[in-house]
């Protein structure tokens, strides 16, 4: 009798058994809160060029500005307060990562379900396209797309979705093939329910839960991928820097001792990714019946 309420409770208990995962969850919550509350937390709006003072550029951490505010993490080449830039950058990085993952999950799940149900030629064609796409590194696909499309938040989400949907399509198809053989699907067919209803109302809820866990880990990958693309200058416009772009901006000064411009965004990025991974890995282990004690 292991389902829903009891399953959730057991999952929570399993999850809480790992102190590291709990720490990861707390960290993630703090980071998410900081990102969401950035406009209220940040001392400065880094996107408002009027607030930036070029005279205050590349100040070390703890320096004071002309009007008396302290730059706790220093400033970058445009005189941007690094703390504010990082908070706003987190917002973009996490937002892009989550949005891309959810979209990729939705598209991949739909494609995988339809392929598993249709079978035959449709399935073969769809799955060969998936195989073909998965044989290229995700970053290559995203790079090519962004090089063609140009910068922009919507475009980078599109590129990330294009790079990741195939992974979900394959996973969902596998799970749906196993689920399809169960008698409750036959029962739905005998009741002459519409095909879309069987696919998305009956099959999907039974296929989705393990996939959501996989998606949690994939959020970290999406964030890292976005940071990589931004670092290479292909992601977002310079006026709205994400973490990757901030790191890229400070890269040139790294050897001249002005470490803070790259270092602090790097720390923020690494912490976010580690926190997401800690939570995701533990969730995956807790849901894996073979690892359950």
């Amino acid at each position: 009798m292991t389902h829903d309420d009891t399953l959730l409770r057991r999952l929570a208990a399993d999850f809480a058994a790992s102190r590291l995962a709990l720490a990861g969850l707390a960290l993630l919550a703090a980071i998410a809160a900081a990102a969401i509350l950035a406009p209220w937390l940040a001392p400065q709006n880094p996107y408002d060029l009027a607030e930036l003072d070029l005279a205050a550029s590349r100040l070390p951490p703890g320096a004071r500005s002309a009007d008396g505010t302290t730059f706790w993490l220093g400033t970058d080449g445009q005189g941007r307060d690094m703390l504010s830039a990082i908070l706003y950058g987190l917002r973009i990085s996490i937002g892009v990562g989550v949005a891309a993952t959810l979209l990729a999950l939705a598209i991949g799940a739909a494609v995988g379900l339809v392929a598993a149900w249709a079978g035959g030629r449709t399935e073969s064609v769809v799955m060969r396209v998936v195989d073909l796409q998965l044989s290229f590194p995700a970053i290559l696909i995203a790079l090519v797309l962004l090089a063609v499309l140009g910068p922009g938040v919507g475009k980078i989400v599109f590129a990330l979705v294009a790079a990741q949907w195939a992974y979900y399509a394959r996973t969902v198809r596998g799970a749906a093939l196993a689920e399809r053989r169960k008698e409750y699907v036959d029962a739905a067919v005998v009741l002459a329910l519409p095909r879309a209803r069987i696919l998305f109302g009956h099959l999907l809820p039974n296929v989705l839960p393990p996939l959501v866990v996989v998606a949690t880990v994939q959020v970290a990958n999406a964030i890292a991928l976005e940071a990589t693309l931004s670092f290479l200058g292909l992601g977002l416009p310079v006026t709205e820097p994400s973490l990757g772009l901030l790191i890229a901006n400070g890269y040139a000064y790294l050897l001249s001792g002005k470490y803070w411009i790259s270092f602090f965004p790097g720390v923020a990025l690494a912490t976010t990714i580690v926190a997401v991974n800690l939570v995701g890995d533990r969730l995956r282990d807790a849901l894996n019946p073979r690892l359950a004690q």
Partner: protein
Amino acid sequence: MTAPLLELRAVSMRFARPLDTAARIARALGANVGEAAVHALDGVSLAVAQGEVVGLVGESGCGKSTLARIAVGLHAPSAGERLWKGRPTASLRGDAALRARLAAQMIFQDPLASLNPRMRVAELVGEAPVVHGLVQRAGRRGYVAELLERVGLDASVARRYPHQLSGGQRARVGIARALAVRPELLVCDEAVAALDVSVQAQVLNLFAALRRDLGLAYLFISHDLGVVRYLADRVAVMYLGRIVESAPAEALFAAPRHPYTRALLAEMPRLEVRRKRFAAVRGEIPSPLAPPPGCHFHPRCPHAMPRCRMQRPELAEVAPGRFAACFLDVTAEPQ
């Protein structure tokens, strides 16, 4: 004479595993590689009249479940015809096709596996009638409660998930779900095999009550002769994809004609039998991948004749309403 509710005419089902590339190359090079095919059903004809209960018995692996799936329309047969009230279902379109589909419902073997684990009973039972417009969405609750009451469940069960129910309750929910689309025929594939004996009896009584109250017809498939005997008007016996005997239940249990039926009945536990001898059916059921030629039963038959190895005995009427596929019957007739 009116057409029977459901009629299967010379239905065959062949499951073939297509050759893979390696095998195709081997065959192109002249190797003797054939396509592995299983004849799960081999020219089976069966009819269920309005309000009639037809029992279908046979050992596991003889094609009973495949026949159930064809009877309910889940599979299309690879040969032969399925007729609903005298009309081939393959030719039905639109509303008529939908009504014919809904009129034949299935009760599954595993009550838990046949219920979607993420749906509450109210949705499991109430979804299809709302989708098909048999009840309004607003009336769903009352309709579900009415159905649950009919199958002997409390209306409060509607809020539960399948895993929160007992085996007997799950079986009843499965029955309520089938009844929700107002069927005329229930195909029960080993519907009580997974239940405890006491619960089995309750569910069988429920089937009997539903037949009485709603005039339902049944195709009742089971390996358990006692269960079939309790419910069926007519019994068909299957062996390796063929029907070997079919007769009114009473006559069949009183005087089986086919050696296989006799062997099955001899194995049936009975109170009056003191000393049991289990020598009745010798050997194993042969592989359906390579069934024996002629009569499929001849390697295990105590009366096998040379002819049985060569020629397939057809199902023939050996007495009014009684059919058997055995050369013994034909040869015994003139005496």
